[in-house]
């Protein structure tokens, strides 16, 4: 039943835009991409008339923290994980994300403290994975974000990987640095936790002093992940030294490099470099780090993820074109082909190409902001959306 013909679309491939083109989908895969309309067909296809709208490959989001927030939207207010999962994937589907790597943290006392959840981290991994395996709207995968101060959870990483829960792995190190102990950064920290500066300094020093897993253990874990052919990323690389060290250890993806120099070094080392689309959409970092628009323009960030705001990716694609930073195919590649390569699924997904899975978005961009009309996942129309001028109520006065 997943046989479709999409006619009269502006098809965005990895290289060009095909105007008034057509795409044929059979058994969930793209079997033909053409620059002409498909009028005669022998089988019973469902025909979608695109009316010139854009047809984009579905977004692949390698890093989004949304699942923990959906499960626990307020500190201490947990919801059933299955409910949170279903509602979140529906939301993702609506913003054009057809493959998501739900980023679930492990080993971070701070994140756990912020959430104050009744669930153990194991509960969350287990239940999210169970939900991923069920019938769903989009492709759901798990990105394990491991905080290296979580020495107690080191063995659990192996277990979760062995159980098949993990499709992407990253190493995080959120230990504060010396510069946090004074000035604006100290003030911001104290404000955030509503502490006095003395209390904040004590807290920061305590966090700085936390033990981390040894370098040898880290190497062992990376070796194990590589042997399983899992993509491995480093997080918030702050210095050239740190990114070079990670590269030496076999890590080939850098998430959220802090400065342009570090991002540039990552590119020279042929690492995939991930930036937050939220940063693009807001026109800069909320924390005063590098501007992803600039970094993308210089070619030193090649992947966008949603970070903490899932709708940001779709809007960023069109914003980068509007701001004359990239062409539409270049911009789209940041969110589909490049993340597919980084996650090693580009043989299946990531572009509108013959033989690949039909993960497609039908997008209207006639009114200065992109609006998704259909989200197609594996040839299935998972979500369909339509806007109209809704009637206004008349009040009795």
């Amino acid at each position, binding site marked *: 039943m997943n046989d479709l013909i999409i006619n009269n679309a502006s098809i965005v491939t990895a290289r060009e835009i095909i105007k008034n083109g057509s795409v044929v989908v059979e058994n969930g895969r793209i079997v033909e991409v053409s620059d002409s309309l498909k009028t005669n067909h022998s089988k019973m296809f469902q025909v979608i008339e695109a009316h010139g709208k854009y047809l984009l490959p579905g977004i692949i989001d390698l890093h989004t923290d949304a699942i923990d927030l959906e499960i626990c939207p307020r500190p201490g207010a947990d919801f059933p994980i299955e409910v949170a999962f*279903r509602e979140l994937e529906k939301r993702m589907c609506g913003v054009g994300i057809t493959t998501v790597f739900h980023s679930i943290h492990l080993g971070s006392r701070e994140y756990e403290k912020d959430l104050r959840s009744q669930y153990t981290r194991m509960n969350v991994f287990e239940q999210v994975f169970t939900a991923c395996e069920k019938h769903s709207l*989009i492709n759901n995968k798990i990105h394990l974000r491991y905080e290296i101060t979580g020495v107690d959870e080191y063995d659990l990483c192996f277990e979760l990987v062995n159980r098949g829960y993990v499709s992407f792995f990253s190493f995080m190190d959120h230990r504060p640095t010396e510069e946090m102990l004074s000035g604006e950064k100290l003030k911001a920290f104290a404000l955030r936790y509503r502490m006095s500066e003395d209390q904040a300094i004590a807290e920061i020093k305590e966090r700085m002093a936390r033990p981390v897993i040894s370098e040898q253990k880290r190497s062992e874990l990376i070796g194990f992940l590589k042997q399983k052919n899992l993509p491995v990323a480093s997080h918030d690389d702050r210095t050239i030294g740190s990114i070079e060290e990670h590269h030496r250890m076999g890590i080939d993806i850098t998430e959220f490099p802090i400065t342009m120099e570090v991002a540039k070094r990552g590119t020279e080392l042929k690492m995939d470099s991930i930036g937050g689309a*939220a940063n693009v959409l*807001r026109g800069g970092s909320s924390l005063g780090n590098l501007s992803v628009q600039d970094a993308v323009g210089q070619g030193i960030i090649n992947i966008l993820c949603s970070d903490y705001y899932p709708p940001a990716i779709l809007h960023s694609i069109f914003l980068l074109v509007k701001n004359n930073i990239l062409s539409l195919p270049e911009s789209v590649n940041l969110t589909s082909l490049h993340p597919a390569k980084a996650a090693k699924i580009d043989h299946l997904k990531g572009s509108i190409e013959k033989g690949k899975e039909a993960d497609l978005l039908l997008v209207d961009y006639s009114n200065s902001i992109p609006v998704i009309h259909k989200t197609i996942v*594996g040839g299935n129309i998972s979500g369909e959306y339509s806007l109209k001028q*809704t009637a206004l*109520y008349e009040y009795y006065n």
Partner: protein
Amino acid sequence: MIHNAIIVTPEEVIRGGSVIINNGIITNLSTSSFPSADHSDVKSFDARGNYLIPGIIDIHTDAMDVEINPRSGADFPVQVAFSELERRMCGAGITTVYHSLHLGYRDAEYMLKSKYKRKQIFEEVHQASQQSTMIHNKIHLRYEISGTDDYSLCFELIEKGCVDLFSFMDHTPGQGQYPMDKYIVMAQKRGLNKEQAIAELERKIARSKITKDQIDELTRFLLSRNIAIASHDDDSIEKVEANHAHGINICEFPITMETARRATELHMSVVGGASNVLRGGSTGGNLNVREAIENGCMNTLCSDYYPPAILYSIFMLYQQGVLSLPQAVNLATINAAKAVNIDNTTGSIEIGKAADILLINYTNGLPTVLKTIVSGNISSGYSIKQQQVFEYSNQI
């Protein structure tokens, strides 16, 4: 025409019924699955025995400010936040939403650290509501009465048509949600020591509020415009009675069973959070909404801070035998519509009303929205299937 559906009306469940929609209005309701009459010219779809319930009316949800500002200090364009949030609401089965925007609430402003002025948010959300949309978008102005500087702005926003529902809030500690001792415990959980917590408490108690006369003046102004008014976090029978005497007809999040009961006796709309139902109790240790509903002391559900909660709560209350399905559905549809004076146009599957309808699959213990129809337009539709698994190990 939608046929072969289980239709939930305010009084009953019609198994194998059909609904006919013309120009966005429900024009016929039949107990027959396939009405034989001459409707062959009408576009029709088969509901395949799924439920048809009226679209949810959510009169209190704080989601908009979070969508604009998902992290403290990280603002997004209001138009983007608006269109993405209404899409999410649509998917959660909400067809009419009252975006609850606070005003005068310094503590909330402090937490958001937004670059936007409150007035700008009201104006931009209102403007976005007037464009082509997926659902009916309205504004609920939540006014904190210690926001004395914003008193005149309330009138201005009402006159501009930016307000469809108004509530008076008082988050001063020492009453309402936060009795003194509870406030101090919560402040300590945030990392303050006891002295700092007490100092903060005293600072907040010392804030001036608008006068009783000003509240009266504002209330009269709202009533003259036929805008519904709610009170928030009532913690005593006296407060409820005083509010009722002033013409306030909605009691939001009453703190105790007694206040909820008194408000019900006074025929007020008594609103509880669906998040409370879904989670099985209040995060702040206040009234249990399910118990209040069981006791007949609460008649309306809103999403509060988690938009999907309403739909799940409806089916949970039904599944647990607390209410019949029509009664559970009424909590978030016709009863909510009555609270805000829109029950003449929407809120139930009845002839003459707007076709704000949800097609729901309810086979696995959890409700799934298949289609959300707003004024006859299929605003969103979903289809779930087994996704393919990608294997990493094959590619080495």
